[in-house]
């Protein structure tokens, strides 16, 4: 270990997506010494793919305020979201969106020069009355505009990026404090310890644990794997969002903004079936609801195409000019991935895995929390998590569209501010690293590098994906989930037998992919075990044998621990910061 350097910072951020770069900007602007590790160049992070918009009650288009946004988000979460965190996010939303605009983000504009906002699923005015235009948009490239703007402002602020450095493990000492991470440089294979007073994970989602996904190849849940290996629980992992409109067969997303702009879903009879399921919000009901309705249509034989297995997304009535202005990328995706010109014909779509509501548990400052001495939310010193890898929890059992980009920015900033305060408060030297800080990582690497036989990493990864797709999908029964648990635990035993055929030190992508499988499997186990245990239907977790929500027994957060696959639960925070709590009600739209 003598030849492995230790680099010391005030803060180390793992992840250069929207969340990571909002936090790093805060730190760099305050003059802290901050390192951002990212396994891809920052603008290649998957935030770049977000299309539809970022939610904030600016009220540029209709009457709107953060109370409405708060109500919609609590209801959307099916009362699993923590109301303190939701209040904080919705209240901060307008401010952080204006800040993005001041940074130069190229939002679309209204004739009066204000930011253009479009309708999105589940966002309403006056507590559920009618759809409201709350999604601040840059055409259908909002994520791209946001991510590039943040990268640009980080360049200006002088943030130090470690590009194509992958974090492999968290360093935690005997007190349970987090002291940094071990990282590897792809270009040379060299290792380094990144020591910091604050370590922040912003590693994004694990959407690649499913076979059909709107997520990028890099979304392998590394932060979840690292946290789980370090003894940190993962929260609410049974809740995975299926986006109603992934291109059938390709998985590529078509934003909900399509429906926001007026597109509708049709079955094989040409019927706009959402009118039946959600008379009020119709095609703009929340995603869990729309996905299940689509699934139902297909099950009842009204799917489209030769196998009656998809639904049509029809926007032909919007007209070419409007489509090319508001949804240019959707048009491009239709041509590239469905051979369809959406100005002329509808696009075949199916519900597709999209977003992980669960993740590393945190409080509203982004501090990671875990049960300790009877306190379910004891702070893990030195450790923060934000963005899709975290669970604060503002999305509960079902996220509303546009609330993720918002979550990145609100909690990216909040965590940044908290870290600045903590570092200034305790100018003492860094805690010393435990002697065995790197042992586990080195052992994992040397096993891979010296493997003589075994399985191809991607074969195992593909088996994980097909298992998750079949056993933790839109349609869940106890039997299906129990079988899934057995299968995933079998797969878990295969992971240590990955054989790596490439042993070059230079840009060894096969090695990275093999290491990623060790993270995929943790996210998959957490999901499968948490799902099989929850005996109710709530938000995205639709349990066919227990079709009702059961607030008495199940209005609680799941915590999964890697050690022994143990499950624990903790209460939902029903008390907002300043306003009245929104009591649970049956969700109808």
């Amino acid at each position, binding site marked *: 270990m003598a030849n492995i350097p230790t680099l010391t910072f005030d803060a180390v951020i793992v992840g250069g997506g929207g969340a990571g770069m909002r936090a790093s900007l805060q730190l760099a602007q305050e003059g802290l010494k901050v390192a951002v590790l990212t396994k891809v160049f920052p603008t*290649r*992070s998957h935030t770049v793919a977000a299309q539809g918009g970022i939610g904030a009650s600016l009220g540029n288009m209709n009457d709107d305020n953060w109370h409405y946004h708060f109500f919609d988000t609590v209801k959307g979460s099916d009362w699993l979201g923590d109301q303190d965190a939701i209040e904080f996010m919705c209240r901060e939303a307008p401010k952080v969106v204006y800040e993005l605009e001041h940074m130069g983000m190229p939002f679309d504009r209204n*004739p009066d020069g204000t930011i253009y906002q479009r309708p999105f699923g589940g966002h309403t005015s006056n507590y559920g009355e009618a759809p409201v235009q709350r999604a601040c948009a*840059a055409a259908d490239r909002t994520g791209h505009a946001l991510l590039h703007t943040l990268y*640009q402002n980080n360049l200006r602020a002088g943030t130090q990026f470690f590009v194509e450095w992958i974090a492999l493990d968290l360093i935690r000492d005997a007190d349970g404090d987090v002291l940094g991470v071990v990282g590897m440089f792809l270009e040379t294979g060299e290792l380094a310890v990144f020591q910091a007073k604050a370590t922040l994970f912003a590693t994004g989602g694990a959407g690649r644990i499913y076979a059909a996904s709107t997520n990028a190849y890099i979304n392998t849940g590394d932060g979840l794997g690292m946290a789980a290996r370090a003894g940190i629980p993962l929260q609410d992992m049974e809740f995975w969002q299926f986006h109603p409109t992934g291109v059938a067969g*390709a998985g*590529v997303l078509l934003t909900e903004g399509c429906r926001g702009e007026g597109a509708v879903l049709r079955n094989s009879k040409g019927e706009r079936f959402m009118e039946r399921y959600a008379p009020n919000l119709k095609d703009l009901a929340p995603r869990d609801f729309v996905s299940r309705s689509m699934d139902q249509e297909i099950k009842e034989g009204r799917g489209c195409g030769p196998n009656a297995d998809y639904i049509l997304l029809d926007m032909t009535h919007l007209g070419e000019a409007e489509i090319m202005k508001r949804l240019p990328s959707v048009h491009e995706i239709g041509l590239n991935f469905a051979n369809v010109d959406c100005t002329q014909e509808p696009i075949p779509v199916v519900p597709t895995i999209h977003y992980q509501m669960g993740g590393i548990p945190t409080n509203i400052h982004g501090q990671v929390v875990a049960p300790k001495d009877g306190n379910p939310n004891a702070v893990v010193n030195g450790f923060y998590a934000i963005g899709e890898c975290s669970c604060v929890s503002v999305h509960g059992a079902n996220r509303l569209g546009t609330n993720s980009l918002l979550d990145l920015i609100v909690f990216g900033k909040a965590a940044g501010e908290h870290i600045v305060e903590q570092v200034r408060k305790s100018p003492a030297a860094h805690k010393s690293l435990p002697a065995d800080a790197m042992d586990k990582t080195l052992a994992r690497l040397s096993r891979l590098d010296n493997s003589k036989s075994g399985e191809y990493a991607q074969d195992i990864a593909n088996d994980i994906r097909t298992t998750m797709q079949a056993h933790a999908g839109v349609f869940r029964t106890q039997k299906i989930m129990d079988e899934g648990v057995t299968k995933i635990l079998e797969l878990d035993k295969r992971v240590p037998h990955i054989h790596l055929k490439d042993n070059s030190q230079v*840009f060894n992508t096969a090695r990275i992919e093999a290491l990623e499988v060790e993270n995929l499997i943790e996210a998959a186990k957490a999901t499968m075990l948490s799902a099989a245990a929850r005996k109710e239907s709530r938000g995205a977790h639709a349990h066919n044998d227990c079709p009702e929500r059961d607030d008495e027994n199940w209005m609680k957060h799941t915590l999964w621990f890697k050690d022994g696959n143990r499950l624990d639960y903790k209460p939902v925070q029903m008390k907002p910061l300043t306003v009245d709590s929104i009591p649970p009600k049956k969700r109808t739209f």
Partner: protein
Amino acid sequence: MTDVRTIEVYRYDPAKDEAPYMQTYTLELDGSERMLLDALIKLKKQDETLSFRRSCREGICGSDGMNVNGKNGLACLLNLNHLPKRIVIRPLPGLPVIRDLVVDMSMFYKQYEKIKPYLINDTPAPAKERLQSPEEREKLDGLYECILCACCSTSCPSFWWNPDRFIGPSGLLQAYRFLIDSRDQATEERLANLDDPFSVFRCHGIQNCVAVCPKGLNPTKAIGHIRNMLLRRAT
């Protein structure tokens, strides 16, 4: 009917190869692969050592720029049905190769950084958004969408010869994106920064950049605008 392709790939691992070489693979497609990237991922199963970058698989992250049958493009947007039986893949030209299809993009990013790719407006920000009319905003269309894939700059002969001094099409497209933003106040500073014989004026309007841009952007046009702004400034 089986669809068998011959794929020739540029290979180089500095740790073990004395020199780069072309390796020929035969790949049988089963119809589940749509784009060239899908074929490459399948090839990687045959030969794990083949290295390339990829992430979004939908043409938005800019990771997988490469030279395919002589033309730069994104592997994830090149439809296999439109590619011939024999596919020759090389790394993006003109940049140092790290390994196989992975190039060192530092020079490309340095040129981007040079143009100060961020909005400069040091007046106190209002409580709400800075206003911008739809017409002013429309001027950013065709500019801000760049994904920094480097397909354009690495097809530009002027960039090959002067990668350290000519900003290149991608960087200049972004330079214009900020020059034309109604909210930006550093026009003079930006133009002064570009006003030398190399940064802009090495562009000879050959339009290779326009021909390859996977996002359909037009750097040559943007460069023309900057050129005019510089000339106007000089008089």
